[in-house]
C-alpha cells in the first residue's frame, strides 16, 4: 500500500519515496544541462511501460517540470543543477523536480493563489501548471538552502479517464529547516538513469534488427518496414527477396505488374479456353443449320463484359481480365507506386467501354459486323450481320440469343484487353501480318472457294426460285456462313495475337528474371566485397592490436630495463665515488707519509704503497670497464629511444620521460667520465710521484749504503 499522506508525520526531507509504498522504485538523474530532456523522458517511459500511467501526462509533467525549473533555478556551486526523481508503485507515479529557487517563497500566498487558480509569481505559475496536469502536487521547501522540490502525483486509476476530477491530494506545501528530525522514508530501489541499459531501451525493437546492418534513418526504416509487410502480404511467408533486393528490383517488379495489367490471355487456362471456344464455333458451324434471328445488343452487354461466369456458377468480378481483382490489384500495386498508373488505366478502360458502347450503337445502326470488327481493335464482338425478321419463330430467337450471348462472353474472354496492349509496334505489325496471312489462307482455301461457289450457286437458286421463303433462307444461310468465316478469321487472329502476347510476356519475364538474377548477383558480389573489406579491416585491426600489444609490452619492458639500468648507473656511480674518495684519501696519506716519515719507515711501508698502487691500477681498470659498459648501455638506450620514437609517434609523454631519463643517465655518465679522467690524472700523478719516490728511495738507499759504509769504517776504526 502507498504510504499515507503526511498528515500523521512531519516532512522535513526531500524525495518522492515518502509518498510511495515501501516496495516502490525510484529513477533519478542529476541534470546540469537540460538538453536531451526528451530522451530522459523517453528513458523514464521505458521503465513505466508496465504501469498504467497516462503517458501523455507523464511526458508533459517531466518536460514541463524540467524546462521550467531551469528558468526558476538558482545556480548551486556555480552550476545550474536540476534533479529529477521519478518514483512509482502499484498505484501511482510521483515525479519530483528539485532545484534552487532564486525567487522568494511565500507558502501562504502560493496556497491562496494556486488554490484560486490565480497565479501571480513565476513559482506560482509553475506549481499551478503542474497542478493542472497531475492528480496531486506536493511542494517541499528548505528555507536554509532555498531548495524546492515540486512533486506531481499521477494516480494510475485516475489517468484512465474514469474519474477525471479525482485527486490524490490537494496542493500541500511543506517548509522545513536544515536538519532532519525523523528517520527518512526511502524507496526499496533507487536507480540512476545512467545505470539503465539505455542504449537498448531507447532503441526500438525493430531498429535493433535493422539499423545496425543497414544504417537507415528512422523514416527510411519505417518506410522499409511498411513495404516489407506489404510484400509479405503479397508473397506470404515465401517471400524470396530481401528488402534491399526488392528495392533495387522495384522497377523491374513494377514492369512485371504493369504487364499483368496490360497483357491478358496469358495464362494457359485461358489459352485452353480459347482453343475450346474455337472448337465450339466449329461445332456450331457444323451442327447449326437453323436460321436464327439476330438480336440487338442489350444494355446487359456491359455487365457481361465485366462479369465472367465462374466454374461454380457464381459471377465473380473479373475486372479487366487481369490476375487480381480490381481492389486487390490496387492494394497490391500501391506500394510499388503504380496506383496512379492503375487509375489512369482504369480511366482509359472506361473510355474504351464508352467507345465499345458507342460502337455497339453504331453496330445497331448499321448492323454491319465488319464495321464492328474494324472498329474494335483485336475484335471485341462479332455480331451476326443478318437483319432481323418479324416472322422468326421463338425457338430460333432463343437459340440466336444464346448464341449471341455466348459469343459475347467468349469475345470478352478472348479479348486481350480493353486497354491498349503494351506490345511494340513491330509486334503488332507481325501479328497483323500473321492474321492477314491466316485470313488469306482461309479465303484462298477450300472453305473460301466453297463459300464463293455456294454464293454463286445460291444466287442462281435465288434467281430460279420464286418463293420468298427459299430466297430468305438462302440469304440467311449464306449470311451465317460468311459470318462464321469472319469469326474463324477473327479467332485465328486472336489466337495469333495471344500466342504472340504469350511469347512477348515470356520474353519480358525472362528478361526481367535475368535482370533480377543479374542484380541479385551484383548484390551478392557487392556484399562479398564488403565482407572481404570488413574481414581485411578486422585482420588489419587485429594485426595492429597485436603490434600495439607487443609494443606496449616492449615499452613496459624497456621502461623496466631503463629503470634497472639507471639504478645500476647510480649504484656504480656511488661505488665509483666511494672509490674515488678512498683513493683520494690514500693519495693524501701517501703524500703525508712521504713527506713526514723517516726513511726507515718508508722502506718498510714502500711495500704497502706498491700494493696500494696495484690496487689503484686494478680499480682504474675496473672503472675503465665500467665506463665502457656505460658507453655500451648508452648506445643501446639511444638505439631503443630512436626505435621507440619511430614506433610510437603518439606516446610523446613516454618518450619525453625516456628522454629525461636518458639525459639524466647521460649526465651521470658524463660525470662518471669526468671522475674517471680525474682519477686517471690522479693516477698519472701518483705514478709520477711513485717514480719520484722510487728515485728518492734509490737516493736514500745510496745514502744508506754510504752511511753503512761510513759506519762500518768508523766502527772498524
Amino acid at each position, binding site marked *: 500500500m502507498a504510504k499515507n499522506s503526511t498528515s500523521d508525520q512531519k516532512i522535513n526531507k526531500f524525495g518522492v519515496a515518502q509518498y510511495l509504498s515501501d516496495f516502490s522504485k525510484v529513477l533519478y538523474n542529476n541534470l546540469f544541462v537540460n538538453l536531451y530532456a526528451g530522451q530522459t523522458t523517453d528513458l523514464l517511459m521505458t521503465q513505466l511501460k508496465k504501469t498504467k500511467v497516462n503517458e501523455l501526462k507523464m511526458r508533459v509533467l517531466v518536460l514541463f517540470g524540467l524546462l521550467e525549473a531551469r528558468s526558476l533555478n538558482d545556480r548551486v556551486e556555480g552550476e545550474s543543477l536540476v534533479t529529477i526523481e521519478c518514483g512509482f508503485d502499484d498505484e501511482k507515479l510521483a515525479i519530483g523536480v528539485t532545484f534552487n529557487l532564486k525567487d522568494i517563497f511565500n507558502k501562504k500566498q502560493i496556497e491562496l493563489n494556486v488554490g484560486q487558480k490565480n497565479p501571480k509569481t513565476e513559482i506560482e505559475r509553475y506549481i499551478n501548471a503542474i497542478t493542472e496536469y497531475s492528480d496531486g502536487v506536493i511542494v517541499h521547501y528548505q528555507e536554509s538552502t532555498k*531548495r524546492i522540490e515540486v512533486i506531481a502525483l499521477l494516480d494510475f486509476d485516475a489517468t484512465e479517464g474514469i474519474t477525471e476530477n479525482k485527486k490524490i491530494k490537494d496542493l500541500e506545501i511543506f517548509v522545513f529547516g536544515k536538519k532532519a528530525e525523523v528517520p527518512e522514508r526511502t524507496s526499496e530501489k533507487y536507480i540512476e*538513469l545512467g545505470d539503465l541499459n539505455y542504449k537498448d531501451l531507447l532503441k526500438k525493437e525493430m531498429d535493433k534488427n535493422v539499423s545496425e546492418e543497414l544504417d537507415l534513418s528512422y523514416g527510411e526504416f519505417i518506410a522499409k518496414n511498411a513495404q516489407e509487410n506489404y510484400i509479405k502480404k503479397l508473397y506470404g511467408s515465401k517471400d524470396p527477396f530481401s528488402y534491399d533486393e526488392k528495392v533495387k528490383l522495384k522497377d523491374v517488379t513494377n514492369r512485371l505488374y504493369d504487364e499483368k495489367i496490360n497483357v491478358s490471355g496469358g495464362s494457359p487456362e485461358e489459352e485452353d479456353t480459347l482453343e475450346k471456344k474455337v472448337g465450339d464455333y466449329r461445332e456450331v458451324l457444323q451442327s447449326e443449320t437453323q436460321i436464327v434471328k439476330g438480336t440487338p445488343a442489350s444494355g446487359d452487354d456491359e455487365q457481361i463484359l465485366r462479369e465472367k461466369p465462374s466454374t461454380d456458377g457464381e459471377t465473380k468480378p473479373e475486372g479487366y481480365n487481369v490476375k487480381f481483382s480490381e481492389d486487390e490489384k490496387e492494394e497490391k500495386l500501391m506500394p510499388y507506386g503504380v496506383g496512379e498508373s492503375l487509375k489512369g488505366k482504369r480511366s482509359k478502360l472506361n473510355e474504351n467501354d464508352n467507345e465499345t458502347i458507342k460502337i455497339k450503337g453504331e453496330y445497331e445502326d448499321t448492323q454491319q459486323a465488319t464495321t464492328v470488327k474494324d472498329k474494335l481493335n483485336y475484335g471485341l464482338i462479332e455480331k451476326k450481320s443478318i437483319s432481323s425478321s418479324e416472322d422468326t419463330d421463338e425457338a430460333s430467337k432463343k437459340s440466336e440469343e444464346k448464341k449471341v450471348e455466348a459469343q459475347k462472353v467468349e469475345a470478352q474472354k478472348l479479348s486481350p484487353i480493353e486497354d491498349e496492349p503494351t506490345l511494340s509496334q513491330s509486334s503488332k505489325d507481325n501479328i497483323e501480318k500473321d492474321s492477314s496471312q491466316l485470313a488469306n489462307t482461309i479465303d484462298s482455301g477450300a472453305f473460301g472457294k466453297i463459300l464463293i461457289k455456294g454464293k454463286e450457286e445460291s444466287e442462281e437458286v435465288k434467281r430460279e426460285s420464286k418463293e420468298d421463303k427459299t430466297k430468305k433462307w438462302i440469304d440467311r444461310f449464306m449470311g451465317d456462313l460468311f459470318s462464321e468465316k469472319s469469326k474463324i478469321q477473327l479467332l485465328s487472329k486472336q489466337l495469333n495475337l495471344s500466342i504472340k502476347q504469350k511469347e512477348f510476356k515470356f520474353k519480358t519475364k525472362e528478361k526481367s528474371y535475368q535482370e533480377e538474377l543479374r542484380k541479385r548477383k551484383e548484390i551478392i558480389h557487392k556484399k562479398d566485397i564488403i565482407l572481404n573489406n570488413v574481414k581485411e579491416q578486422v585482420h588489419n585491426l587485429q594485426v595492429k592490436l597485436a603490434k600495439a600489444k607487443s609494443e606496449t609490452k616492449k615499452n613496459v619492458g624497456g621502461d623496466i630495463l631503463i629503470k634497472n639500468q639507471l639504478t645500476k648507473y647510480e649504484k656504480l656511480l656511488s661505488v665509483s665515488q666511494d672509490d674515488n674518495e678512498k683513493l683520494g684519501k690514500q693519495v693524501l696519506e701517501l703524500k703525508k707519509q712521504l713527506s713526514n716519515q723517516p726513511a726507515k719507515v718508508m722502506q718498510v711501508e714502500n711495500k704497502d704503497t706498491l700494493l696500494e698502487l696495484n690496487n689503484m691500477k686494478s680499480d682504474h681498470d675496473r672503472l675503465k670497464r665500467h665506463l665502457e659498459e656505460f658507453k655500451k648501455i648508452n648506445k643501446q638506450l639511444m638505439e631503443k629511444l630512436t626505435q621507440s620514437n619511430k614506433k610510437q609517434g603518439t606516446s610523446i609523454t613516454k618518450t619525453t620521460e625516456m628522454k*629525461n631519463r636518458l639525459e639524466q643517465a647521460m649526465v651521470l655518465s658524463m660525470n662518471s667520465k669526468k671522475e674517471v679522467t680525474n682519477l686517471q690524472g690522479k693516477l698519472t700523478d701518483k705514478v709520477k710521484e711513485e717514480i719520484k719516490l722510487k728515485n728518492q728511495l734509490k737516493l736514500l738507499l745510496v745514502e744508506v749504503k754510504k752511511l753503512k759504509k761510513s759506519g762500518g769504517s768508523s766502527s772498524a776504526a
Partner: protein
Amino acid sequence: MDFYYKKLPLELFNELRPFPVSKVKPYQLLLAPVYVFLHKNSKFLALKGPLDFFTEQEMEKYSTYEVMYFHRSIELCTPFVIASKSVKDILSLESVDMIPSYELSDSVLRLIGPLWSSENKIEPYFINIFVDELCAPLGNKKMEEASLLDVDLFECALLQSSWAVFLALHLGYCNLNFLNKLRLNTFDSVMGFESYNGKNEEVEDLISIARSTLKSIETKVLYGNYFDKKNERVCKKMSSKINRIQNEVCVTGLKSATIFGKEGAFSG
C-alpha cells in the same frame, strides 16, 4: 601519515623510483615518500611524506639534488591517476553539455568503478590521489596555512573532501566546476576555515557521510557495503551504484591496492 622508512640504505635502491627535481612542482600533493641521496652517508633520506607538498622555497633549496626518489608505492597510484585523468578529459570536453547526463554518469561510473576492488573496498589515500588529479588545486596559501595549522587535520580534510567528491561522482554529479567547489567547501568546513553553506540537501548528506565514515586519518579502508546497511536516501542510491559496480564494472578477482604493509610504504 606515518611511513616506514625515513632513511634508506644504498642497498635498497631498487625500492625507489628516480624522478628529476624539475618535474616536482611546489604545492602538489606528493603521491609517495620522497627521498634524496646523501653522498656522504651513502643513504637515501626522506624529505617529505605522502599527502605532503613542497613549498616554493623548499623546491629552490632542493633543486641542487637534480634527482629525487619516490618510494615504489607510487606505482600503486597509477590506475587511480589514469582513471582520474580520463574522467577529467571527459568532463573537460567542450562538448560535454551535448552528452546526455545519464550517458555522462554512466561513462564516469565505468571509469571509477574498477577502482573499487572485488572485495568491495577502497583506501582513502587512493581516493585522495584520484580527486587531487581530477579537481583544481586547493590553493597555495590555503594548503600552506592548513598544514601549518594542524598536519593531521589537514590530511583528514584532504581525505574527507576527496571522499565526498568521489561519492558525488558516483551519484551522477558529473560537472567539474561543481566538484571543484564541493571539494573546496568540504575542505574548508573540515579545516574550520568556513562553515559549509550548502545549497543542496543531497550533497550535504554526502558530506556528512564522508565525514562520518572517514573520521580520521586512521581510517585505512572504506567499505562499499557500508551503504547497504543504511536507510538514508543517499546511502540507498550509493548502495545501488556499488551493486552495479560489483556486478558489471568491477574487475573480478582484483585485489585492493594498499599502501600498508610490505607493498606500501606506510606503517599500519
